[in-house]
């Protein structure tokens, strides 16, 4: 027996190590499927192991990230200043354009809020965010996981949504004291409830093994077209409603899940080159004070624009006719080529006939009335 173990020592060690890890895999996978699902955070013991691993690597990542940031800052702030003036002017013009655009949208937004209040619609507003920087990746191309430089100490929790100004990028997975894992939308274990902009169809967005983002729970629908925008639906209770997710890139039958379609979505945010992100740490059903102030300013600007437009319209030469100008209040202007009809209802009367160019005995107005005619007398010819 001893000779067996001595002879096959090497393969036995390999078998023992592989077997131990297989059992470990089974233990880890089983609870995650029954509780949080594969996207949920780890169990307590696994989390501790992961915490140790992360604790070894992240200090180095922070140092490397910090030094690269300093070098980049030095380059961009002191050396690479070409076209800075042109860029500043372009930015000023852009700000002016956006202010005008904001003012034009303010009235629609106010109307939308009034309607939402009437319908008792529950809207979620983002009240607080934490800005964080990406310091590293998971190092595996089939794992859409990034490391952020903020953690529990900054008030982050697992499951919080992560966005950029361009759109949604993912959510937090495991959160450690000074570091957090960001699970990107394109990770195979990631998911989000989404809404198509024009068709208002709801779907579930998932990452794939190839790194793309797909909606694959919808049956073929001719109304869904490439180019349609995709927003968060708020149904997953992770991402607030209405955040941009991306644009539909292609629609094709899903060979793995018939009869569903694979709708590939191009993410609004560049998931491969994330530098800074915002973690949504608080939402509220009422609009935050700062946003209310912005809305009030935009509303005032819109009102001012409207008044200016009215003043300009008054100064322009009038196109109205004298008849309509002289009409008394309450009178309904009647078009000249119309007979009868219901007052106040446009086009309800008969059209008046045009004047005759060559009148004959059949022309309107040439026939005498029945009172003037005598029985047996010949009809008088028309007067030229």
């Amino acid at each position, binding site marked *: 027996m001893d000779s067996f173990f001595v002879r096959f020592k090497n393969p036995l*060690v390999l078998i023992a190590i592989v077997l131990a890890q297989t059992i470990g895999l089974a233990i880890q996978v089983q609870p995650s499927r029954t509780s949080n699902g594969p996207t949920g955070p780890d169990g307590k013991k696994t989390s501790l*192991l*992961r915490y140790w691993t992360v604790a070894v*690597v992240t200090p180095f990542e922070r140092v490397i990230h910090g030094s690269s940031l300093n070098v980049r800052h030095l380059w961009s702030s002191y050396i690479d200043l070409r076209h800075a003036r042109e860029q500043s002017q372009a930015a000023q013009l852009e700000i002016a354009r956006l202010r005008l655009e904001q003012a034009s949208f303010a009235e629609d937004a106010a109307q939308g809020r009034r309607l939402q209040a009437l319908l008792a619609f529950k809207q979620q507003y983002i009240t607080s965010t934490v800005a964080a920087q990406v310091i590293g*990746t998971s190092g595996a191309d089939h794992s859409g*996981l990034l490391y952020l430089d903020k953690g529990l100490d900054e008030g982050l929790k697992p499951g919080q949504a992560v966005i950029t100004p361009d759109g949604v990028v993912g959510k937090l997975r495991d959160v450690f004291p000074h570091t957090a894992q960001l699970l990107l939308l394109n990770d*195979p274990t990631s998911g989000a409830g989404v809404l198509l902009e024009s068709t208002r169809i709801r779907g579930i967005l998932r990452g794939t093994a190839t790194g793309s983002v797909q909606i694959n729970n919808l049956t073929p629908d001719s109304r869904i077209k490439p180019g349609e925008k995709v927003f968060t639906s708020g149904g997953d209770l992770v991402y607030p409603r209405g955040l941009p997710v991306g644009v539909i890139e292609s629609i094709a039958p899903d060979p793995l899940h018939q009869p569903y379609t694979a709708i590939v979505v191009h993410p609004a945010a560049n998931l491969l080159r994330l530098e800074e992100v915002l973690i949504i740490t608080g939402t509220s059903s009422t609009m935050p004070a700062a946003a209310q102030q912005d809305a009030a300013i935009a509303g005032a600007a819109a009102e001012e624009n409207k008044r200016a437009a009215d003043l300009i319209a008054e100064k322009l030469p009038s196109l109205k006719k004298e008849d309509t100008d002289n009409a008394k209040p309450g009178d309904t202007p009647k078009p000249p080529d119309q007979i009868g009809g219901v007052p106040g209802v446009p086009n309800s009367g008969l059209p008046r006939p045009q004047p005759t160019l060559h009148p004959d005995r059949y022309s309107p107005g040439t026939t005498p009335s029945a009172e003037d005619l005598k029985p047996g007398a010949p009809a008088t010819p028309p007067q030229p």
Partner: protein
Amino acid sequence: MAEHSYTSRRELDQYGFHPAVTLLVPVVCILLQVVLPKTFPRLAVLDLPLIAVIFFSVARRSQIAGTVTGTLIGLFQDGLTNHPFGVNGIAKGIIGYIAASIGFAVDVENLVNRIALNFCFSLLQSGLLYLIARWLLGDPTVRLLPVHELIRAASNTVVAIPMFYMLDRFRTRE
């Protein structure tokens, strides 16, 4: 009369490394692996820890050492991903064992052999990861992309050759 040596090939070519090198090289490989794709996303296709596993295994020519080295490096990699612990551990453990076994049979100093070893082990790891995800984890969404895996194997080989020559400087004959 010529003297004949009765020492085996294993005894002649078995190399060792300073403990600092044994520890630092895999750590640096893992660090570069997690930092580089942030700036250059396409470099995520590389697997520097795999190259370290192959190098140490073929240089030491000890199957147990190869298995343990591969397993530890793989488990460390798993700790940084969202995969369960063991996915990379199993794959790299098996590769460490086979690499050490092959080290007895072929001349691992030869450039062609090194190219072939790295290319084949990279493909083997892709196959093992696919099997683990598909069978052990029961994930039906995982797919094996042949072209992507060939590109990965070629990229790993291109990086591995100069890395092997660089790491050769740190080995000591036992």
